């Protein structure tokens, strides 16, 4: 009987534990340009919870996770930050998205540390952003 009562509690705890996975702010830069500027911009933005930035060759990809109630405006936030990053890095192709897929894939790419495949994979991630239903 005690186990039966404990089960919902365990279930809720497991569910909540799943929500706590935090990536934080991560920047990987393989070029000579200053990547800290981008990280600083994202860190200072109160609307953003997590961000992963990858700068390689002529591409910059930023995957964002916005705060819960900012989700309604996440496309607008991504657009605004994309404009600012384009100003900061005019020579780069900038992709900014608040879509979970972009954050997950960029993070996965960074964790794999497979630098040779960066260009190819980054192109694929950028093309995902443009996808419509």
């Amino acid at each position, binding site marked *: 009987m005690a186990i039966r009562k404990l089960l919902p509690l365990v279930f809720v705890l497991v*569910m909540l534990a799943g929500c706590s996975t935090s990536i934080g702010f991560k920047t990987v830069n393989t070029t000579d340009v200053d990547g800290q500027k981008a990280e600083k911009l994202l860190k200072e933005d109160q609307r953003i919870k997590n961000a992963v930035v990858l700068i390689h060759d002529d591409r910059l990809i930023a995957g964002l996770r916005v705060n819960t109630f900012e989700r309604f405006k996440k496309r607008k936030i991504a657009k605004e930050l994309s404009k600012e990053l384009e100003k900061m890095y005019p020579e780069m192709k900038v992709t900014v998205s608040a*879509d*979970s*897929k*972009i954050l*997950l894939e960029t993070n996965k790419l960074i964790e794999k540390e497979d630098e040779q495949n960066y260009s190819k994979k980054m192109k694929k991630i950028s093309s*995902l*952003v443009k*996808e*419509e*239903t």
Partner: protein
Amino acid sequence: MDEKKYQQLQQQITPKPKYVKNCIAAFLVGGLICLVGQFVALFYISFFDFTERTASNPTVATMIFISMLLTGFGYYKKIAQVGGAGSAVPITGFGNAMISSAIEHKSEGYVLGVGGNMFKLAGSVILYGVFSAFVVALVKTILVGLGVVSW
């Protein structure tokens, strides 16, 4: 017994619906269904090439399929007894409406029974869903045209 007296008696005997309890149960069951949907969407985003926007299509299909299976096995009825509107409003309610009418009319034959009645309940959902979508799209198109909002 005249009509008024009968109605008074009926009101006295009829148990009062527990609105607060029903609302909480509907909120929890509906929320739980949405949570499952969120996990399904996350599955498609993590393991396939779907983005948050494109993942909604396979997620809806999966949720309808799951609710159809649960209806077939008789579990959805139990969920609906607890959750009420919480189980009917999400897209899973659509799958349930389709399959339950199909099961109900199975004895009348597959073509005129199942085929003819499958969308009997779901038909109204489709009709008003499409109509509401049309109205919302029309309003948004006008607002975008006027420059009030952007796409």
